[in-house]
């Protein structure tokens, strides 16, 4: 998610310069574990659950959630990836090319889709994702899991499972990576 | 045939003219001198420190020629004035104005009009239109064959009586070898000397082609015209000239091979002459990459080697004249797809500047050699050397051009007098600007502007 935002925010590309480490690697692990438990609890098991990671930031997180769910419940939940490039509402305002091919593992009819992304910001990417998902069947429910909710929503979208709530300034950038979560800014 | 004459009222009201401060260049050489012209339109005196009162020209109009060259007016032996038939592209009047602005005091109109200039009536129409416009001495050529169809000869003797000295089917070449031979033989028996001019193009080889056949046509996917389409007819007409003893003039030479053939023929003493256009010594087929039909012309723009050969031919005397092949076309026909658009480019208002910028400045020609190619040589070919291209001396008719060889300007067709816009040189910076053009002593162009 940060990657995508990076390309959309002025100065359109550039280098991410971190300022503060907000979560360490261990914090990430603990949050992931907790979110996995929450998903199981909320859905009374994993019977109908499908994990869909948003390209590209949500994909590694979805994979780690998938690992955790298997470790806890012993269930191999179907997992897929979704690129929303073709569903963005800001095409013409410098949208991006898809970063990878969408891969939905099964018909979503009657399933509980857990959308996974690294950072929730304006909510527009999630709106696009909901649009994209509806082209793959009528899900029973769609839930949203994000590692960081940084505020500044522009649409009525809210997460179901959150790793960390992090108040930020609009011009700041949040980067979720293997070693943790950093707060910083873009520099040309 | 009417001589070029200024309108009577101009002549009677004038007190003569004096061109001051220029450098006179003609066939005899180059000298700093003023030129005094008496009201009748002939040169009265040439020299420094002229005593105007003694010449009776105390009230003569002063024409400033500081920094300029004063030369015999330019002569274009290959111009398309489009009248009759295609007046939307150009008329004798607009073409004459364009010619005057380009420094020309005489042009020879090409016969591929609608109807063709193949009869006395059409020749008269063109000549009368030239006199009525009064900007330039408009002479007419006539076709070799009726309607340029290549099957029957035109009444050459009748046409020659009206002053026609150049016969050509320009627009196409005479395809039939026997007919061309007969035309040459017949023309050799006329009471006045005429020349048959050939647009060299063997249609069996050029058919379907729209640009030079070679590297660029292959890349761009446009059917091409091989150099041999021109060279084969040059070869044939040299042979026929030898056979009949008759003069042949080769129009718009464009290939190295054709230039070489003419060089060899001249070395053997054959009575052949040749011309080349400014676009054939400045542009190559690479320009067509833009698919802009402004670069579509016949013969087509060729290779860099061909351009170099044309320049060499101009420098060593193989090519006797620079002729513009001024070919106006309206914007809408020139905006058609490349293969459908007609061939042709404007030339009258850029020829002198291109000659100066591309030939004199780089040292390919001296200024006098350029003027030979643009004034007295073509005048001789057109049979009007008694009036045009003459040495600037007392008694000569004052058909003169005064131009500043260093004045820099940018080619902008919206400023042209020509009715059409199709110049390939739009935006090009060139040097050499006409300041005054005098026809019979009367300025047709004064300070760079047409006077009528």
């Amino acid at each position, binding site marked *: 998610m940060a990657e995508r935002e990076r390309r959309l925010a002025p100065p359109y590309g550039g280098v991410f310069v971190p300022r503060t480490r907000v979560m360490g690697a261990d914090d990430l692990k603990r949050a992931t574990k907790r979110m996995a438990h929450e998903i199981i609890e909320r859905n009374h098991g994993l019977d109908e659950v499908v994990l869909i990671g948003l390209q590209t930031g949500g994909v590694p997180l979805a994979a780690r959630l998938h690992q955790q769910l298997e470790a806890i419940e012993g269930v191999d939940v179907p997992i897929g990836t979704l690129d929303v490039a*073709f569903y963005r509402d800001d095409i*013409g305002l410098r949208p991006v090319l898809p970063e990878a091919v969408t891969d939905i593992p099964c018909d979503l009819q009657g399933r509980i889709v857990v959308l996974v992304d690294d950072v929730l910001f304006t909510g527009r990417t999630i709106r696009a994702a909901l649009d994209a998902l509806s082209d793959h069947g009528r899900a029973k429910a769609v839930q949203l899991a994000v590692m960081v909710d940084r505020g500044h929503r522009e649409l009525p979208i809210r997460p179901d499972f959150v790793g960390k709530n992090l108040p930020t300034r609009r011009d700041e950038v949040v980067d979720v990576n293997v070693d943790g979560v950093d707060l910083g800014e873009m520099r040309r | 045939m009417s001589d070029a004459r200024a309108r009577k009222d101009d002549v009677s009201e004038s007190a003569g003219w004096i061109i001051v401060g220029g450098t006179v260049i003609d066939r005899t050489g180059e000298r700093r001198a003023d030129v005094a012209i008496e009201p009748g339109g002939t040169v009265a005196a040439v020299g420094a420190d002229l005593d105007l009162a003694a010449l009776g020209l105390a009230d003569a109009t002063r024409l400033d020629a500081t920094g300029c060259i004063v030369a015999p007016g330019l002569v274009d032996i290959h111009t398309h004035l489009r009248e009759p038939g295609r007046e939307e592209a150009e008329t004798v009047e607009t073409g004459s104005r364009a010619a005057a602005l380009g420094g020309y005091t005489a042009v020879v109109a090409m016969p591929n009009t609608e109807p063709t200039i193949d009869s006395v009536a059409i020749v008269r129409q063109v000549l009368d239109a030239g006199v009525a416009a009064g900007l330039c001495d408009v002479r007419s050529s006539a076709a070799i064959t009726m309607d340029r169809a290549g099957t029957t000869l035109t009444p050459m003797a009748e046409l020659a009586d009206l002053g026609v000295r150049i016969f050509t089917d320009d627009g196409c070449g005479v395809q039939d070898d026997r007919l061309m031979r007969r035309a040459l033989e017949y023309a050799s028996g006329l009471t006045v000397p005429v020349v048959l001019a050939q647009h060299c193009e063997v249609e069996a080889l050029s058919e379907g082609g729209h640009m030079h056949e070679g590297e660029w*046509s292959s*890349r*761009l996917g446009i059917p091409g015209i091989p150099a041999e389409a021109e060279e084969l007819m040059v070869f044939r007409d040299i042979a026929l000239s030898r056979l009949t003893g008759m003069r042949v003039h080769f129009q718009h030479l464009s290939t190295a091979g054709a230039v070489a053939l003419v060089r060899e023929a001249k070395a053997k003493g054959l009575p052949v002459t040749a011309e080349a256009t400014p676009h054939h010594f400045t542009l190559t087929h690479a320009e067509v990459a833009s*698919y802009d039909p402004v670069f579509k012309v016949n013969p087509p723009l060729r290779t860099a080697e061909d351009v170099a050969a044309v320049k060499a031919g101009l420098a060593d005397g193989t090519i006797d004249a620079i002729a513009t092949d001024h070919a106006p076309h309206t914007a*809408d026909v020139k905006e058609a797809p490349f293969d459908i658009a007609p061939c042709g480019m404007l030339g009258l208002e850029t020829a002198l500047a291109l000659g100066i910028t591309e030939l004199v400045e780089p040292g390919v020609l001296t200024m006098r050699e350029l003027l030979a190619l643009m004034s007295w040589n073509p005048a001789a070919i057109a049979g009007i050397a008694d009036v045009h291209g003459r040495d600037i001396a007392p008694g000569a008719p004052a058909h003169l051009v005064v131009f500043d060889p260093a004045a820099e300007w940018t080619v902008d067709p919206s400023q042209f007098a020509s009715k059409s816009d199709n110049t390939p040189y739009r935006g090009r910076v060139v040097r050499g600007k006409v300041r005054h053009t005098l026809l019979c002593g009367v300025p047709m162009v004064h300070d760079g502007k047409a006077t009528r």
Partner: protein
Amino acid sequence: MSRLVTNPRHGELRNLLSIADLGPDVAAGIGEVMTLTDSFVEVSERTIPKVPALRGRTVVSLFFEDSTRTRLSFETAAKRLSADTMNFSVSTSSVKKGESLRDTIETIEAMGVDAIVVRHSSAGVPLQIARWAQSAVINAGDGWHEHPTQALLDCYTIRQRFGDLAGRRIAIVGDIRHSRVARSDVAAFTALGAEVTLVAPPTLLPPSLEGWPVKVSHDLDEMLPELDVCYLLRMQRERMTEALIPSLREYVARYGLDAARADRLPEHALIMHPGPMNRGVEINAEVADRPNTVIIDQVRNGVAVRMAVLFLLLGSGTGWGGEVEG
């Protein structure tokens, strides 16, 4: 092949008139189209093969030359991107008079369009149109000059089977001289590192091959055992009246891919054709139905490739080419 690049601004794809327009690094440009096409292949395989990416945009087909297949391919591509389509089938007669090419474009643009897909029998028309038009212009075939989307779908089809084109030996067989497909294919295949040989009688080759990064052969039989791709061009019957080949029978005998010749191709080799086929002329009827003849794949990939091109021109803003250096 054409060295002419039409993009006025660096890093922005405004029109697709020739393969060179994907430059300055043509290989990278083609690569981006290939990657994007993967996504559109996925979209095309869905039950509802549609995405809202170009909703509200209008794509016009301006076909001066008849071609139902290519036109439908572009229209399908536009529709799958949720764009609106318009169709101008202009009769050749009004074009022959050289009438109103510019007027036609100005009329179309006045109606508010975003992209014009042009096919014309005269080379260079898409470039002329691009000079007058505000909308994006896509060349769907101009005379003998280029047919860039055909070359792109050819590259995609080869990539589907082989992974990439570098070092692949490709023969293009037939009437190269009059073929816009050949010119675009040569540009695209060689940019991707393939080794291209043109196989044709001398009369069906362009007058000059200077600057073409290809080999030439007049002997199809000697080429066959070494090829990875045998690409056959359509042999038009009109060529016989122009004395370019003595007879169709002689052409078929020397350059037609019959069963015996197809057997001599390596097992993995692909047989390709831009369509429509002249069964029994450049390709034998039985050979046309073999598994290694990927003509149907070419057609299928054509829609996805054209979706990618439309998306690049209309949907992707200025994200083309160079990344900003940090």
